[in-house]
Each structure stands twice: as C-alpha cells, then as structure tokens.
C-alpha cells in the first residue's frame, strides 16, 4: 500500500490536477483550471498541505499569482503580484512571468519565494497575497553583470529556481539561466556565485565565475550538503562545504550525453538521482536522443548510470521534459512522474523500472509537482 498522490500539472494552456487512489493505479482529473492561461508552476504548501499557489500569465495579460485553499475549486488573485520597483529608466525591468514558486522554510509559515523572467527574486510573507522585491538580488550592484539583457533563453532569461536549506532558513541557493548558481547565507541580503568547474561552452571563457545556464538544481533531501545540478552543459554534483562542482555526467553513455533540463533526487537516498537526457548535438534538437526516450538513474552519486526505458516508446519518441516537469513523490515504493512537451503525463511506481502513461493530449506541459493527498 502506498499513499494517494496528487499531481499538479501546469501547461501552456491551463492547469490540471490528477488525484490517485491509494495504490496509484487510477487517477481522477480536475481541470482545465484557467484554460488558456500559461501556468509555469503550481505548488502545494507542504507546511499546511492546503494552500495552492499558481504562477499564471496569458499571451495578452500580464503575470499574476493565484491562490486556492479549497483544492483548486476557487482561486483568489494576489493583491500585489511580483513586480520590480518603479523606475524612470527607459529600460526599467518588468516581470514577464513568474517561473518558479518555492514555499519558505518550515519555520516560516506563510513565506513564499518566486523566481521570475527577467531574473528577479520576490518574497511573500502572507501566503502569496503580496509580493516584495528582494533588493539583495534584484538591486545588487552586480545585477546587470549577472543578468545582462541580451542573455535571454528562448522564453526569456530566468531566475528559474529558489532552494532553501531545510536546516537553516537563511541559507538559500538560486539558479539562473544567465549566471548559474548563487548562494546566500543571510536570507537573500547578499549573494555570491557558486559555479567553480561548471562549463559554459557558449562563452569565450568556458569556466567563468558566473555566466553558466543552471537548468535545475536540487538538494539531496537526506543530505542537504549535496547539490545536484542539470546544467545546460552537463550533469554536476557538489558536496558542501566544497565549492567545486564535479561533472558526474561524464559517466553517461557517450551516445546519449548528459544534456537535459532537469534532475530529480531520491527523497530517501542521497546517492540516487534521475535525469532525462535530451539531444544537445549540432543544432540542439532538445528531444530524446535517437527518438528513444529514457531516464537514467545513478545509485552511486554519479559514478555510474543505468538506462531505464521500459514502457517508453522504443522508437520515434521525441520527448522533451522541461525544467519543472520531472518529480518524485515520497511514497514507498517511490513514484516518479514526468510531463512532456507533447502533453503526455508518465509515471513509474517502481523507481524508474517501468513507465506507463497516465494522461495524454494535454497542452505542452511546463511543470509537474507531486504531493500527498
């Protein structure tokens, strides 16, 4: 017997919630929610297991945050969505979209963080109703060095993640698409780059202090001194207090490579993580290498990787899985979930050993988060 799970799915055209039975065999669907809206992230607050926050925009309308406390039946818009300070500069920043929602530390109920495009960090102290700019990053004297306006990825330059040390609310990491990973030890007042030995093959100096594209970072839940990173240029691991990342993706099969958008750590084993490789050759198709989708698992902290593809198409499967669209639940046995740009939702109930499709025909999936029901 496992736990019943809910999957919170954000897509280019709205949100959906899938709820399982206790065995995770059957799934009930709720949605579409805000059909037509671009939902970058939909997250349940693990502290109260009640509050849902949703980062939304549309092709026309500006970005906002919606909040629900009744399982997504009704939503209230933030009274003050994330927004940069007013400026008279001609090139003053404005939030294009909120990309990543992060519940605050367990000791800080009601606190949430959001990362935006263009790169910005914002904090709410009232459960997501009012958001304030975090000056330590957004007004940092080095901001324009770290986040130059021309460094945009296709959907715009991103502050794509906020990660908080579960042992210390003041110890934070952020990931950006223009400057790599940063660390703060004073709750966001000051920041320093944390990118030693991480490649930026698209810059004149391929190992700069900053300038990397950190697609996804994650702390190992049972060892928060261990960071996993799926970077634009490969898969890395960093064990603190060390500051030099190790390119663990070099152990991946050469014909597959270690390019991807995301990495998912095991919630109970600090040696184990999964990646979903994509094709980063020539013009960067960003699809499953060879049209053969697979996840790869390491159980020895990146020294070796094993292919897990049972259930996925064996040919002509051109999946792409975006940054927030691969996750694990905390059930036993562990469930893994991924959403594709083709609108398919896949799960494994045996730690990646086999995969089955639980939904299809959705719009392009941007995010999948799992939470207990």
């Amino acid at each position, binding site marked *: 017997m496992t736990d019943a799970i809910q999957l919170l799915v954000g897509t280019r055209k709205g949100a959906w919630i899938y709820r399982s039975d206790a065995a995770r065999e059957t799934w009930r669907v709720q949605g579409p929610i805000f059909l037509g809206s671009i939902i970058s992230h939909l997250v349940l607050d693990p502290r109260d297991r009640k509050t849902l926050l949703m980062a939304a925009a*549309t*092709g*026309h*309308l*500006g970005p*906002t945050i919606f909040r629900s406390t009744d399982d997504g039946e009704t939503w209230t*818009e933030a009274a003050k969505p994330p927004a940069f300070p*007013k400026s008279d500069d001609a090139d003053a920043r404005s*939030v294009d979209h909120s990309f990543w929602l992060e519940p605050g530390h367990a000791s800080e109920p009601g606190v949430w963080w959001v990362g935006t495009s263009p790169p910005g960090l914002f904090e709410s102290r009232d459960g997501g109703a009012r958001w304030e700019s975090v000056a330590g990053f957004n007004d940092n004297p080095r901001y324009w060095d770290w986040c130059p306006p021309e460094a945009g990825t296709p959907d715009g330059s991103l502050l794509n993640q906020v990660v908080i040390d579960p042992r210390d609310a003041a110890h934070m990491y952020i990931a950006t698409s223009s400057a790599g990973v940063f660390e703060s030890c004073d709750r966001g007042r000051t920041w320093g780059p944390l990118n030693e030995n991480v490649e930026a093959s698209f810059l004149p100096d391929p190992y700069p202090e900053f300038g990397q594209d950190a697609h996804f970072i994650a702390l190992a839940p049972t060892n928060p001194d261990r960071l996993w990173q799926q970077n634009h240029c490969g898969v890395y691991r960093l064990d603190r207090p060390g500051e030099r990342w190790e390119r663990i993706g070099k152990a991946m099969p050469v014909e597959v490579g270690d390019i991807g958008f995301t990495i998912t750590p095991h919630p109970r084993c600090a040696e184990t993580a999964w990646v979903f490789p994509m094709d980063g050759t020539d013009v960067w198709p960003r699809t499953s290498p060879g049209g053969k989708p697979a996840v790869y698992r390491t159980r020895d902290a990146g020294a070796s990787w094993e292919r897990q593809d049972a259930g996925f198409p064996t040919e002509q499967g051109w999946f792409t899985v975006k940054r927030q669209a691969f996750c694990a639940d905390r059930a036993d046995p562990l469930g893994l979930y991924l959403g594709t740009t083709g609108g398919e939702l896949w799960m494994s109930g045996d730690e990646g050993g086999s995969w089955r499709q639980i939904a299809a025909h959705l719009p392009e999936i941007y995010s999948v988060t799992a939470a207990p029901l």
Partner: protein
Amino acid sequence: MTVSVFIPSQLTAYTGGVTRVSAAGATVAGVLDDLDRRFPGLKFRVVDEQDRVRKHMRMFIGRDETRSVVAPIRDGDELLIFGALSGG
C-alpha cells in the same frame, strides 16, 4: 471625466462578464486606476509596473491608438482596450 470603456474578453473575468463599463479619470492611467479600484487586479494585467502598456495589449481613445498612460481623457471619450492579434 467620465468615459465609456470597452473591456475585452481577456478581462471580463474581472468585470463579471461585462464588456462595457463607465469609469472616471483625467488620463488613461486615471481611468485604469478607477477600474482597478472596482475590479482589483485588472490594471496590472494591462499595464506593467513601469506604466508601460503590455506588449500584446492595445488601447484606443476613440479611434486613436495610444500606448501612453498619461494620454489625456476628455469627458465623453471612449476608451477601448483590446487583446492584440497574437499568440497561438
């Protein structure tokens, strides 16, 4: 100044489905502020934090397009807000 405002479909969730409302203000920003008091959140979906009309929104005072929120409004004017032709 009192003006008649056309609300596009993208914003009728804020106005209870109504596409035509009256609002008061001496400038476009003033009219949007008045709308935002009655329909909280509406203004930020149309104009960003730097008071720039969002890229895929269009506004007309009568038949004249404006992208300036300080454009003056005269009594009896009509302010039309549209979602631009975009997307996919």
